[in-house]
């Protein structure tokens, strides 16, 4: 297996698992969504920022593009796994909306740290981190406005 094939395969596994876990998280938080369409929209926004990153990477990164996609795929997977802190948070009596919000906050914080680390450790330009943070900020605003109507 060539390095590129391995990177593509790992990228598919990371993003595939992330999709399943994020879908599960949205499902267990179904009481906080007003409709199924809102759940789908929430998932689409969460996945959209990664889709945009992959799309831009495939166009602009050059010969290391699949290595880049694999690295951000791993960040995405760990971020999705951090959503599962939902359960231990509940153990401490934090329930309902706050349990959901704390798990999201831990996942976002974890992803920011890991994305930065992946960019620096692998010698990719810091502008990719800044772009991703911008995508993340837009995604959060969209979740708060279009999905949950909080602001």
């Amino acid at each position: 297996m060539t390095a590129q094939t391995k990177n593509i395969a790992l990228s598919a596994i990371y993003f595939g698992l992330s999709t399943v876990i994020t879908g599960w998280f949205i499902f267990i938080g179904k009481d906080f969504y007003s409709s199924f369409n809102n759940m789908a929209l929430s998932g689409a926004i969460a996945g959209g920022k990664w889709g945009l990153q992959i799309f831009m990477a495939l166009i602009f990164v050059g010969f290391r593009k699949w290595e880049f996609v694999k690295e951000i795929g791993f960040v995405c997977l760990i971020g999705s796994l951090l959503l599962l802190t939902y359960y231990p948070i509940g153990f401490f009596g934090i329930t309902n909306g706050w349990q959901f919000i704390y798990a999201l906050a831990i996942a976002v914080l974890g992803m920011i740290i890991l994305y930065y680390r992946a960019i620096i450790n692998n010698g990719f330009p810091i502008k990719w981190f800044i772009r991703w943070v911008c995508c993340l900020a837009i995604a959060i605003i969209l979740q708060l406005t279009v999905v949950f109507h909080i602001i």
Partner: protein
Amino acid sequence: MKKILITLLVAASSVTVYAQLGVTAGLNIAKYTYNNGSEKKSLTSFNGGLVYRTTLSKDFKWQPELVFTGKGAVSTPPANNILGVEKYKNKLNYIEFGSPFIYNTNFGGDDNLTFDMGLGPYAAYLISAVNKAEKFDGTTTKRDFAIGSGTADEFKAMDFGLTYVVGVIVQKNIGVHLKYDQGLRNLEPNYAVKLHTGNFAVNLTYYFNK
């Protein structure tokens, strides 16, 4: 036949080079919750058993474990209850097989101190369930919960869920881990309300080989 056996033995021994067997023991803080919002208080218990740790790749380990673990919860009835009970300790004793996949890193430092973060499934079988009533007058009474899925039963026998692990490995053969088990199966056999277990544990593990 002899050649095949020798080949298998060599293959098995080459695998075990990358594996560690160990013993683990720890303190549990457990409780179970209902989906209707009512909640029990936590119960302190313990766990102990065997662990196996093998290398999947440079950074990934698989650490299946077979342990005896005490879960359950404490409930407090109203203070003026007719039985004079101060609290009930509901002890659920399981044989549990956990199978966490662990990301292990030294963060660029020394291999004598590495960090574990992991997640995986577990399956647990309820071997005994005891209700201990502690009364205001200092006396206690015990009764066994009925285990099973029948109409007279109080807890389902099989539980499964997710096990979370974070911790450190010191000198390659001593592990200190904080673990959390979240039961995903509803253990209430009869009523509409759903019951799920949760358990935090702090464990000390000794691996026989480095």
